[in-house]
Structures are given as C-alpha cells and as structure tokens.
C-alpha cells in the first residue's frame, strides 16, 4: 500500500542547538486516523510542521504522496500544500478577514469561483455553529470560536491529509467531541488524519485510531501504528 507520508530517520534541529526531533521514522497510510501524543515540548508541533511542509528536515528522508520532498524545488510545494489541511496550534486566522473569508481562503487560493464556494462555506459555518458570526473578525470571536473557524478552514477543501495541532485545546468537551466526529467523518471519506493532542480522553473516543508518542524528540508506537496497516475505525457513542 502506498503511504501518504513516509519519514525515514528524520532529524530536525533549530539553529545550532540540540536536535528537536531525532531518528523519526514512520509511515502514514491512506484513510487512517492517527493521534500524536507527548508532553509539552516533546516536539509534536515540530513534527507536524514537517508534515505540512512548513519546514524542511535537517537530515533524513521524507516522502509525501509518493514523492521525495527533501529535494523538491520550492515551486512544487504549493501543489502539495493544497492537498493538506492544517489546523495550527495558534489558529493563524487572518485577523482582518471575517470568519466567512477565513474559511473561504483555501478555496479562493485554489481558484474556486465565488459562486461555487459560497455554498460549502455557509454549510461549514452552519456545522460549526457560527452562521450568525459569519462576518465577525477573529478578534471578536472567543478562543473556542476561533478554533472552530480554524478547523473549518482546514477541512473545507476536502484535503487528502488533515493535520491538526491540539485542535480541541480551547473548546468545551462537547464541542471537542463534535470536532472529533467531524474529523472521523472526513476520515471515512478517505482523508488521512493526524491529530496532535495531550488530551488522553480524546484518544479513547475513536476506536481503531492509531497512536504515536513523542518523548523528547523520539518516536514510539504503543499501538503498533508504525508497523501495521490501519484497522477500520469505530466511533464510540
């Protein structure tokens, strides 16, 4: 089975310090659901940055969608990034754009016409319960609302891979579960999902999800996620 992403002995070093990630090797398979756990500072965000192409590794090999990423020219990166949806840990909403325009951003960048994007964006606003706040700027939204907008923006383009960095950190447990269900629904449609979290309750909500754990920049796989092909997912309750 061809992997969505494949890391082979990847190391990442910021500046001249010690390695933040060391000897990281794994394969992500299409249609599977992964949790990435680890203490704060373990390197979760750093690993995800490599996954969503915000950084190049200091060493090792990365293949994405079957292609070598390390030697890929810059000009080809946008095409790959459009296949990946990202929920940033700090949301990274565009502060002068409304909730609607933030969610529409990936579609507009991909050149989708205004006529074709209004429907999906409104549907998404409805789903995250922010229809009334469609024209609100991020600064006037609560932390949880901003997070929902960030998630909506990440999934609106039906990415082949969704990467979410602590996506439920700012929402109440009910909303956390709703968002997780959205990820699971997307996953059933074929999207590979990677969620970094330190919330162990979440891990139990999706049966069949695989788990990877980072400890001081080194990866371990308590569920054997790194060796075995994915199992079908079961959503509890």
């Amino acid at each position, binding site marked *: 089975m061809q992997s969505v992403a494949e890391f082979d002995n990847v190391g990442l070093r910021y500046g001249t310090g010690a390695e933040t990630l060391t000897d990281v090797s794994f394969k992500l398979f299409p249609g599977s659901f992964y949790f990435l756990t680890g203490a704060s500072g373990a390197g979760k965000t750093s690993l995800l940055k490599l996954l*969503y*192409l*915000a*950084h*190049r590794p200091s060493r090792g090999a990365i293949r994405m969608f079957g292609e070598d990423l390390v030697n890929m020219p*810059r*000009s080809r*990166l*946008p*095409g*790959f*990034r*459009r296949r990946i949806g*990202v929920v*940033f840990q700090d949301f*990274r909403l*565009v*502060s*002068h*754009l409304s909730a609607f*325009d933030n969610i*529409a*951003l*990936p579609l*507009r*960048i*991909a050149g989708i016409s*205004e006529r074709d994007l209004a429907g999906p964006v409104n549907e998404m606003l409805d789903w995250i319960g922010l229809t009334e706040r469609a024209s609100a700027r991020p600064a006037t939204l609560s932390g949880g609302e901003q997070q929902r907008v960030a998630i909506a923006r990440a999934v609106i383009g039906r990415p082949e891979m969704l990467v979410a960095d602590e996506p439920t950190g700012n929402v109440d447990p009910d909303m956390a579960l709703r968002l997780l269900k959205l990820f699971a629904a997307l996953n059933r449609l074929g999207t590979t999902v990677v969620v970094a979290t330190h919330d162990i309750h979440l891990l139990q909500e999706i049966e069949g999800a695989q788990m990877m754990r980072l400890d001081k920049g080194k990866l371990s796989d308590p569920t054997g996620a790194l060796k075995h092909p994915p199992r079908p997912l079961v959503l509890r309750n």
Partner: protein
Amino acid sequence: MRLPFTANPHERQLIPDGRFTGPMPWVMAIMLFLSLLAAAAALALVHAASQGSESLSRQATVQILENDPGARLSQQQQVAARLRRQPGISDVNIVPESEARALLEPWLGDVAEDSDIPVPALIDLEFSATPEPTRLNALRKDAARIAPSVRIDSNAQWLKPWFDLVYSMLWVALAIVLLLLFATAATVALAVRGALNTHKGTIEIMHMMGGTDLQVARLFQRRVALDALFGGALGLALAVAVILLLGERIAALEPGLLSGASVPLYGWPLLLLIPVAVTALSMAMARWTVLSTLKKML
C-alpha cells in the same frame, strides 16, 4: 500573468491597507514632478537650439575695416561680387551703411550717426550648408587680396559654445531622469519590503494553504501600480502646470536665444511616457522584490 487590475476583490482584501496611506504615492509624485521638469527643460532647450541653429549657423558676416570711406565702399562692392561667384553661397547681401550705423547705435549712441566716425562695411552671407572654418579661412584669404582688412565671422563660431551648453544640459537632464528612476525603483523596493514584513503572517498563511509566490506578488504589484499611477498623475499635473506657466513667461521675453524654448509638440507624448514608464518600472520592481524576498521563505 493576470493583469494587476483584474485581481479579484477577495484577493485584494488579503493585503488590507488603504491605498494612499503610506508615503509612497507622494514620493512617487515628487520624483515624477522632478523628472518631468528635467525632461521638459531638456526638450525645450533642444527644440530652441535646433530651431535657431539651422538657419543661424548657415549665416556669416563679412566686415571690412577701412578708414577711407571711398575705398571701403568699393572694396565692399568688389568683395561682394567675388563672393557671389563662389559655390555654396546662396545669398550675398550688402548691408547699407545706414543700416550698419543703426546696428551700432545701441552701443555708440548718437555718435553712430556722425558720418565722420568710420563704421565697418558689412556683407551678410548665407551658405547652403554650415561652412567649415577652413572654408571660411579660404574665403577670407581670397577677399583679403581686395580688402586687406577683411574679416569673416560665422554665426556657427559664436553659436558653438551655446550648442555645447545645450547638449551638455541634455545629458545632465537625461542623467537626472535616470537617477530619479533609480531612486523611484529603490523607494518601491523599500516600501514593498516594509509591506512584506507587515503582512508576513498573512503571507505565511497563504503559503501554507498552497498560495504561490505569484499570487502574493500580484497583490503587492497591484497596490504599487495604484500608488505609482496616483503619484504619476499628481506629478504630471503639477509638472504640466509649471511647464505651461514657465512657457508663458518665456514667450513674453524679447526675441533672443530663449524665445524658442518651449516644449515642442512631439515632446508631450515623450513626457507622458515617463509616468507610464515609471508605473511599469515600479510594478516590475515590486514583483522582483516580492519574488526575491519570498524565495527565502519556504
């Protein structure tokens, strides 16, 4: 490449600053105003020079300085007759003594009317082409056999320093325009770099969603084009007003070397070309700055 003015309205929102907030359009206006004045002055001078030079430099004056009035008159007649037979001289015109005295009047006052005071006998010559100094020298030697005191002064001789000045000023004006264009390009680069810094966050987000460098460049290019167009229009309007005003003042002068100094008709399209060129240059500069800055990002 999409034209900058067709960037769709939602793309434009990504870089939200108002168009005329920064100093850019004003700097552009000043640069353009100065460039246009320099260019207009150069055009006007060249026009004046080329207008005057053609006929002026083909003219020469023969002077015979002879104290004896009878000899002076006969020498004048003979020299004129001799010059009429020379090839390349299209017109030989004996200046009557009364006219020569009238010419001197502004300098000598009433004395000029006093027939006891000798005035040179003058012959106006017009060549079919600007005469070389060697040719004038040969003519003088030939005429000297009749009138030993003869002198031939060509207008080209005393016009030459004036033309030299005009052409040096043309080069100076060209240098000024080029320097101002260079300064404009540098201003654009600085402003764009500043704007890129201000909007770094938005640009990173665009990149992460798969936005290309060209998509980002288009946004900045469009803003710079608008700034340049605004600055260009303002600079042009001011410059045209000043040029027309100065033109009026120059037209009111006594006829002389400056009287032909107005921007010729063919000069106006050239002047209009400058704001267009500046806008194009600014956009190219903005694009280049954006693309070369973004290349350093991932």
